[in-house]
């Protein structure tokens, strides 16, 4: 096991970042102009980084697969963004946000990173407000906050139910400004399909122009991956259809270690699956649990009757209902953290008490709230959500309880990065949801937006100088360099392979099958036996994919089906790694629940053996990956059992 150097600066927790900034190397303005940086992904992390780097004077090339940087999946975030502003004077502080994040992550995140995140969170709000992000305000004209995701302070800033959209549009505006000024060249509808490394350093990418199919070679003195999460490995998730792991996976194959791939967040309040045709799952905001009560019938018979349609929710008497979250977690009740609420739902459904035809769904009931507050108050409080639910399901949650079930939502795992956000490949950085960094084994609500923007606006622009200062003598490498040619050829060969199979099964077919395996064996409850089985199934699936997939159309044209095929191929390989990681981690922590590791029905962490980050090194598609461990040292926080009882 080789050593992983996380490069955490010396000194007191509170001073590490300041100290780092004061001592990091700088690049002078004249030299910045000569340095080119590739930014793949223009979500919150990518757009903020690209804009900031361009403002600083670097030459930036940005890439995204959508038709515009404004459409990255960050746009879908509803709830809000945390910041330790303490505007509400309720005792919040940087330390408290830091502590909550570490605890929420079930003590599997790096102290120094999380503290820095909490620290810069305040600057994010300032920056975004200055950009014209229309955050919610109070009558006095100052910013409003709400409490979110079971924290005891109100630190969540929001812009109606469109916080992610507004933050992204702010960052997008900043990016477009730099594009207009000529400091950023934007490549929309481009997908990174290969990383180019020269002498161990990231030097560029191969990107497929999605309209013409051309494989383009792009040089950069450094490469940033800001390509989002990989929740779509489960096929059904709350992610956008195009969200993928391809860029990160290609980097992984070129030497970037993958950190904690098995950590997946499963969000408890999503609309249940209704049929095989379903393409994605829709998140219903967590805030619904503030007033909604989660329940299923006490008996299987009642549940069965509801599933069959012979009984309705209203027919079940109060005494025959099991408000299981309130029963099991009296102090947090319906507001317990996401991972816990999700598992509890699975449990009751596995017992046969689910209330939708598939068996996988529970009630989220607003009738008490309606009785207590009146229908108008409830309606006003959840203004956009109820109509949205009704539009999708054709049922009115004011009249009959909502039906919900957990769904894959966020991936805490990602490329391993050090304190500077550099991966194990020199000059290759990873930001936002694509890296593994700050959320440990479970992410708190409203913290992903914070992390993406922290990385892009306030962390990377400082840390990258430390690397680039030594690169100023490197002239732009012409893209006819053998490394570029080789990378392009390998991408081409792979594409042609895919096209030449001309099998019988569609790409979605494989994707759905992979999703089912992942959900069944690497979802909310994982066992050694199941994971072992799953690994075999995935390997078989991979072989079948490469011999029986059918990709229509041509390579040299706009061909979304081909793009999908490439992504699914990578998901299959990633799926195997997730299973391996889940099997290795024989403990339960955060979103990762090993059935073998529990105590009194609750997840049991094993700090003695697993207080580390699992960083996996790629050794070949057929070969076992190699595990590298980064010990997690807690110097400021005492490890404790996370209890919400």
């Amino acid at each position, binding site marked *: 096991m080789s050593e992983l150097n996380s490069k955490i600066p010396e000194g007191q927790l509170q001073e590490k970042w300041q100290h780092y900034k004061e001592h990091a190397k700088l690049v002078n303005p004249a030299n910045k102009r000569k340095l080119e940086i590739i930014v793949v992904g223009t979500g919150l992390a990518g757009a903020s980084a690209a804009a900031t780097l361009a403002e600083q004077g670097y030459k930036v090339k940005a890439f995204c697969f959508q038709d515009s940087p404004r459409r990255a999946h960050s746009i879908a975030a509803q709830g809000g963004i945390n910041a330790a502003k303490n505007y509400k004077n309720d005792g919040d502080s940087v330390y408290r946000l830091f502590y909550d994040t570490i605890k929420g992550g079930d003590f599997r995140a790096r102290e120094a990173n999380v503290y820095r995140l909490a620290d810069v969170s305040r600057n994010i709000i300032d*920056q975004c407000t200055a950009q014209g992000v229309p955050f919610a305000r109070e009558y006095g004209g100052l910013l409003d906050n709400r409490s979110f995701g079971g924290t005891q302070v109100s630190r969540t800033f929001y812009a109606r139910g469109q916080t992610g959209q507004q933050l992204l549009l702010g960052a997008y505006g900043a990016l*477009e400004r730099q594009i207009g000024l000529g400091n950023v060249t934007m490549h929309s509808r481009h997908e990174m399909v290969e990383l180019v490394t020269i002498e161990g350093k990231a030097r560029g990418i191969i990107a497929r122009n999605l309209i013409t199919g051309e494989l383009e070679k792009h040089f950069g003195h450094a490469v940033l991956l800001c390509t989002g999460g990989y929740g779509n490995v489960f096929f059904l998730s709350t992610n956008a259809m195009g969200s993928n792991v391809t860029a990160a996976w290609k980097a992984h194959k070129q030497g970037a270690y993958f950190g904690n791939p098995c950590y997946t967040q499963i969000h408890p309040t999503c609309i249940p699956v209704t*049929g095989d045709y379903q393409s*994605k799952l829709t998140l219903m905001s967590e805030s619904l649990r503030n007033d909604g009560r989660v329940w299923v019938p006490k008996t299987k018979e009642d549940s069965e009757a509801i599933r069959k349609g012979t009984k309705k929710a209203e027919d079940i008497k109060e005494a025959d209902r099991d408000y299981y979250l309130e029963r099991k977690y009296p102090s947090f009740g319906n507001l317990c953290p996401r991972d816990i609420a999700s598992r509890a739902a699975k449990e009751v459904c596995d017992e046969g008490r689910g209330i939708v035809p598939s068996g996988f769904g529970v009630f989220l009931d607003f009738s008490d709230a309606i009785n207590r507050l009146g229908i108008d108050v409830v309606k006003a409080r959840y203004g956009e959500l109820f109509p949205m639910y009704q539009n999708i399901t*054709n049922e009115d949650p004011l009249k009959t309880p909502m039906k919900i079930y957990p769904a894959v939502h966020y991936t805490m795992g990602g490329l391993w990065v050090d304190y500077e956000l550099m991966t194990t490949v020199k000059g290759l950085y990873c930001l936002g949801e694509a890296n593994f960094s700050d959320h440990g084994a479970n992410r708190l609500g409203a913290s992903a937006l914070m992390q993406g923007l922290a990385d892009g606006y306030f962390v990377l622009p400082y840390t990258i100088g430390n690397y680039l200062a030594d690169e100023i003598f490197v002239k732009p490498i012409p893209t006819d360099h053998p490394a570029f040619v080789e990378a392009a050829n390998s991408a081409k060969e792979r594409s042609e392979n895919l096209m030449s199979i001309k099998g019988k099964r569609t790409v979605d077919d494989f994707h759905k099958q992979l999703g089912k395996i992942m959900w069944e064996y690497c979802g909310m409850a994982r066992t050694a036996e199941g994971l072992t089985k799953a690994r075999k199934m995935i390997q078989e699936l991979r072989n079948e994919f490469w011999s029986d997939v059918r990709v229509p159309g041509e390579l040299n044209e706009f061909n979304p089906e081909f793009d999908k095929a490439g992504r699914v191929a990578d998901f299959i390989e990633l799926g195997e790694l997730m299973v391996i990681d889940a099997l290795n981690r024989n403990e339960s922590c955060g979103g990762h629940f090993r059935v073998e590791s529990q105590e009194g029905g609750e997840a049991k962490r094993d700090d003695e053996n697993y207080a580390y980050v699992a960083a996996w090194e790629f050794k070949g598609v057929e070969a076992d990956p190699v595990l590298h461990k980064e010990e997690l040292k807690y110097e400021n926080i005492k490890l404790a059992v996370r209890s919400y009882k």
Partner: protein
Amino acid sequence: MKFYLKVWRQKSDKVAGKLVDYTIDNINADMSFLEMIDVLNDDLIRKGEDPIAFDHDCREGICGMCSMYINGRAHGPHHAATTCQLYMRTFRDGDTIYVEPWRAKAFPAIKDLTVDRSAFDRIIARGGFVSVNTGQAQDANNIAVEKASAEKAMDAAACIGCGACVAACPNSAAMLFVSAKISQLALLPQGGPERTLRALGMIDQMDKEGFGNCTNIGACEAECPKEIKLTNIARMNREFLKATIVEE
């Protein structure tokens, strides 16, 4: 449910397109429109035909990627909804459904139902922002903003850049989109210092892209999935007046 589809097929912008007939059966009423197209595509692929290319991503009405002109309406018959938020229960069994791309000179065709909307990005690049570099900002609460203005700014900021306004407008005008951004930033003190430049720049680019001219027909407002109001266009006109007549 069974449907008769007439879908616009066009290999690329270099060749002409045409409507092609498809019949599709066994459609579940709870499917979204895009899921129905997924099913059709799955079918086409199995039959060895080219699937229909269309833009989509979030499938929950926020990314602005989906863009179909369904039965003569931008995003289909639903009010205040995107294509991905349209469900098959809206139609009657046996309906004939026309599916076309957004049509405008400024949105050149790419393939089938996919068009190039990068003109919107270029308009934003001419002023759809506040010029504040990272790290320059003062404390967020140093400037108080009247709640009513903030709410109106948010109303305008809700635009998802889908282009339905252009598609629905008989003149292919982009004024609703452009005015939404100009309004958002005009309503907030943070956008104040750049008002003149912003209005002139964005409108100039809008014209260069070849969008049509507003005649206040209001189809854009009626079809906008985010209910952006015509009031914004009036506000943009005022901003423009101020910039050209009042400012030095």
